[in-house]
């Protein structure tokens, strides 16, 4: 990464200093998300979910128009239909909310950026090589992900890594460097180890355990652990019962230096992050009266 950076992450009209945690609420515009099964597919429900997320302390919302895993094909037109007007509507309602769009298509990226998106969450790790130019031209931020060389919307079959953390660092920092060369703002670039994608549970656990090594690259780290299978397999719990495990993984990630957290349960994550910010010394307790009067 470049030397002139001050460690501040700038997205939209928000700035997040080093040590400050940013919370990203997941808003799916898909009928078949693994977790909420399409609860926010309808536009009114999605707007209401965003209003609630903001009230609960979300700094960013991440809008997805295509289910990450294998599913019904979604054409670019359909993805545009699900996202562009919606992004414009969010922008009108919440002028300072950071809007992230989860897409791997450069055509969608350009249109949602025009509509007001501040961050392009390229979960499929540069599968469309033009997406980085969309971010550069529009001045948005960019998430650089690690999926172990998979194609979009496929699942892993026995992914093997000599050192999964080293592979993640090598891949995501190379994508970040390429993004800078392509003209993306360095202070808008995040790296995401992308737990579960192209990784087995043991590998995702290893990534969580050694998240400090990713943070040490200097790039702000986004973690998206919320309700994922590696938590479910670790605790033998189905998607609806992984909230506590999610908070544990999120808390360890925060302690080890992650800066942006993509979650389903905003109030729970906000509390955990506010607490860890105090533990880390980057924030003060709300009030300390016990045994001090």
């Amino acid at each position, binding site marked *: 990464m470049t030397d002139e950076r001050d460690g501040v992450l700038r997205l939209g009209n928000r700035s997040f200093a080093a040590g400050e945690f940013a919370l990203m609420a997941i808003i799916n515009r898909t009928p078949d998300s693994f977790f909420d099964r399409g609860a926010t597919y309808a536009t009114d429900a999605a707007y209401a979910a965003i209003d609630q997320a903001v009230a609960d302390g979300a700094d960013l919302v991440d809008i997805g128009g295509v289910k990450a895993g*294998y599913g019904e094909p979604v054409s670019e037109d359909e993805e545009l239909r699900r996202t562009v007007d919606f992004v414009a509507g969010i922008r009108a309602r919440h002028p300072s909310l950071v809007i992230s769009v989860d897409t791997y298509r450069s055509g969608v990226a350009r249109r949602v950026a025009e509509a007001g998106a501040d961050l392009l969450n390229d979960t499929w790790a540069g599968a469309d090589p033009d997406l980085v130019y969309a971010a550069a031209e529009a001045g948005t931020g960019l998430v650089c992900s690690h999926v172990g060389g998979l194609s979009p919307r*496929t*699942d*892993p*079959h*026995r992914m*093997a*890594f*000599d050192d999964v953390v080293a592979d993640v660092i090598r891949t995501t920092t190379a994508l970040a460097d390429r993004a800078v060369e392509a003209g993306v703002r360095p202070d808008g670039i995040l790296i995401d180890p992308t737990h579960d994608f192209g990784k*087995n*549970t*043991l*590998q995702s*656990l*290893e990534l969580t355990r050694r998240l400090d090594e990713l943070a040490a690259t200097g790039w702000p780290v986004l973690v998206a652990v919320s309700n994922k299978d590696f938590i479910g397999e670790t605790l*033998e719990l189905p998607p609806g019962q992984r909230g506590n495990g999610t908070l544990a993984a999120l808390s360890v990630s925060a302690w080890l230096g992650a800066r942006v957290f993509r979650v389903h349960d905003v109030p729970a994550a906000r509390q955990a992050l506010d607490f860890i910010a105090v533990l880390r010394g980057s924030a003060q307790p709300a009030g300390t009266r016990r045994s001090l009067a």
Partner: protein
Amino acid sequence: MPVVAAAVCPHPPLLVPEVASGAAPELDDLRTACLAAIDALSTASTIVVVGSAPAVPYGLVRFPAAAGGSFAAYGAPGVRIGGGDPVLPLSLAIGGWLLEQSKAARLPRTYVAVPATTSPDDCVRLGREIAAGNDRVGLLVMGDGSARRSEHSPVHLHPRAEIFDTTVATALQHSDLDVLKALDPDLGTELQAAGRGPWQALAGALEGATLTPDLTYNAAPYGVGYLVASFT
């Protein structure tokens, strides 16, 4: 001497309990079937393990008995076989790991990696070469069925996956070598059936042998086809 006994086993990392952790008991029956088939190789004087490998970086290459294999790349750094750097591809590492728990553990051993791109003719030729020496060979063939058997498979459902695996299972059960030799390599690749090449090597190795086949396991509990067969 020809091949005096042969065993066919799958090679999911899940067979190794340290990889599967709490899920290990789910594959107890598969592990037991594999070990029973491999125990039957102990009448041989030497073991040859044939298994699929990614075309890159592997060629059609042989490894000595002491070759290293590790499961660190799958999350279990504490489990390894042999010595030195872990050079064995997954299929052969699982084969060696199974062998070491079997009654054939002390026999001399050679590993042969069969790249996924190896043609059926070359696979059959490899099998004939293995059977052509003077040794009493116990042949361990490591091969998976399709990884596209179900909606929840690692790679999504392919409508021909089950028929492909059933064809192989029936051929193993009846030692129908012509069917094994005729498996289409392109279809095998599309279905992500890693066993295609090794099974064709088996077909070459069993030509002229008069062994009795027995298919002892045929299931896809996680959407990947697992077949165990014994030829004695």
